[in-house]
């Protein structure tokens, strides 16, 4: 499978990365080179093989159902959460107008 400029433009839109026409054009042969190379995986006989889901067997844990059990992740730290926001306003994340 290979990609053309329209496909790269569509992927870039899905990935929310603005690319100029020139950047899209430059990306086409790069992505095609990589995609042609990974194509060799198609040679592998995977009949009856399950896709890997966990590299080291582990069981899923639930945290204790206690508010603020871990002070680092427990909440009540609004100002710390907002400290690195590019536009924090009135205790919220500021964003440009969403609804026209």
């Amino acid at each position, binding site marked *: 499978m290979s990609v053309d400029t329209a496909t790269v433009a569509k992927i870039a839109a899905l990935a929310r990365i603005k690319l100029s026409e020139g950047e899209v054009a430059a990306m086409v042969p*790069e992505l095609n080179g990589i995609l042609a190379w990974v194509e060799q995986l198609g040679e592998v006989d995977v009949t009856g093989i399950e896709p*890997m889901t966990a590299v*080291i067997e582990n069981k899923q844990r639930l945290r204790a159902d206690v508010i603020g059990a871990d002070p680092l992740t427990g909440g009540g730290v609004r100002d710390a959460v907002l*400290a690195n926001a590019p536009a924090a306003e009135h205790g919220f994340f500021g964003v*440009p107008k969403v609804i026209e």
Partner: protein
Amino acid sequence: MTDLTELGVAAIRDGIAKGDFTAVEVAEAFNANVAAAQEALNAFIVVTPEKALEAAKATDAKRAKGEALGIMGGVPIGMKDLFATKGVQTTAASHILEGFTPEYESTVSQKLWDAGAGMLGKLNLDQFAMGSSNETSYFGNVISPWRRKDGGNAALAPGGSSGGSSTAVSARLAPAATGTDTGGSIRQPAAFTGISGIKPTYGRCSRWGIVAFASSLDQAGPMARDVRDCAIMLEAMAGFDPKDSTSLDMPVPAWEAGLSGDLKGKKVGIPREYRMDGMDADVAASWDAGIAWLKDAGAEIVDVSLPHTKYALPAYYIIAPAEASSNLARYDGVRYGLRDLPEGSGLQDMYAATRAAGFGAEVKRRILIGTYVLSAGFYDAYYTQAQKVRTLIAQDFKNAFTLCDVILAPTAPTAAFGLGEKSDDPLAMYLNDVFAVPASLAGLPAMSVPAGLNREGLPLGLQIVGKQFDEQGVLNAGLAIEQRAAFSAKPEKWW
């Protein structure tokens, strides 16, 4: 007085405990080396001499009171700038996180401070740990302290992504540094700079507070001058963390106390598929030397097969970008980091403009690949197929480990290459990790130790891969090589 910056982790810790020198003297010596090398080597993004001194004073004060100093007591280290450090800028070497100052500390870095270590600074790396040469950092290339002995001054790659770490340790700017390894990012830079580094079993070190690249592969580990130092530092870094859902709920073994270079009764597997056509002659020779050393240490050498080796890299370059495209979706200009809001634009334009301005070329390339292989209609052909191949690669190792205890192979296909030599060809760069990626895909502990110099006078590394949870077996085989390779070369100071 001895040059304190020539000492490693164990020697510093033990020397401070005995009173041969103070932790403050050690911190001052390394702070001076860091400052003197910064312009030429660019190993650090941020230097924190005051943090190193503060920790050192705490160690000296504890010693004066007769308190325990911790297993890293008084040892100043470099911290890869992928670990969140409270109050100290954490960027993953990206523009999009420039100025980001975490309000919290990563689990691994906190464990190191709790063990008595201090921070010399935040080390440069490939942007979001994506790269094998440290040429994708927004903050400039890291330069290896090593040079070819051809009389030329060509700048060489320190490896990647932990290139600031490898440069700092080999140039004596730090006795040890943290690294992270997704597809070889601890082992390959260690090999390129003549130091040791171990990636433990997936889940040994908490990923909490480490900027995520490919979560099913990312693992932290130590980089240091020798095997003992790696064992000590790994003990400090490892351990169960409820804040990481893939953290291993197992006790941390006493790896340092368990070190032994005697391999009697052990079997070492040599994977025949790693002996590739056109293999670099010096790399092949160092592999043969490694086999002889392990035999001399009492091990039995056995031939093993890892039949899906050639498919590991292509599988990795689907899985890692897929996970990265998902992980890096969080950088959107809303909650932290860069925001680019073109005049009069809305939310979607802000996302796209922010990410265009904030990510470097290699990061964008991988996000786009990841987005493509996960998109509707292509998911099964690429992603599911790659995850099935990953199962087969893990099975290959499982089968091999019925015949042997550890596997010995080269770490990288060549010694360090020059900056700029591979940066225009993503595929050529990716192929550098051909020997490192299989163990990453299988989540296995793997280590690189220096084996010698090639004909250009550059270090070569040997890689040991072990069974899951058997870091001790890996460290011991590494020690057996270290004792016989007697590697003492270091870069001649030119910076």
